[in-house]
């Protein structure tokens, strides 16, 4: 799904900003953690897409399983968006600091 790549990109940018700002290892590992979770969300979205496709093309999948996959992907995406919002908010706070 498209929005994932957009978020993926901006999160990567954020991670780079963080790592150039303070070149310590913890920020690097946080970036990895973030990218990992985004990849997981992406995988769940793709899983849900495949399940819906199977259901619509008359596969063997049970409707309940498909809808649960969609719901899980939706919740995971919302969670990721909230984390992104929080990160952006923190970033903007820092940007507004006058030197």
């Amino acid at each position: 799904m498209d929005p994932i790549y957009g978020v993926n990109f901006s999160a990567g940018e954020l991670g780079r900003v963080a790592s150039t700002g303070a070149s310590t290892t913890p920020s690097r590992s946080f970036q990895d953690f973030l990218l990992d979770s985004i990849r997981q969300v992406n995988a769940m979205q793709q899983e849900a897409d495949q399940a819906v496709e199977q259901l619509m093309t008359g596969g063997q999948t049970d409707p309940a399983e498909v809808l649960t996959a969609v719901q899980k992907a939706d919740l995971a995406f919302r969670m990721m968006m909230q984390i992104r919002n929080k990160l952006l908010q923190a970033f903007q706070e820092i940007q507004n600091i006058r030197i």
Partner: protein
Amino acid sequence: MWNSLDVSTSALVAQRIRLHAITSNLANISTTHNEEGEPTPYQPRFVIFQTAEEIGSPGTPGVRVASVEEEQKEPLWKYQPGHPDAVREGPMTGYVAYPNINMMTEMTDALEAARAYEANLGAIEIAKDLQHQTLRIIA
């Protein structure tokens, strides 16, 4: 994190298969031939459920259908001498063997399966709501 959703979904699938067995019993309530066309009355089916450790976290397993079994019931005998499947000789001459399925029992089982399905839908709704509420910590 997704355990309760997965466990409840496994129950939804299991109850649906149980409902399949019940509808099959109701559909074949007067079936006198088996799949090969032999004059054997249909035997009612029932499902066996089993805890599924691979669904959900350890200690809170989901459920799956272990097997679908056939009951071994005596047939219901009806006197129909003109029926092609009627017994030709012996003490049951002129009787036809019908499946021993009680419509009331099957309907009660169907309602029970439907209620169990609804209950699991309710559990899913609660789990979903909790997830949404949790997001409010950060928002």
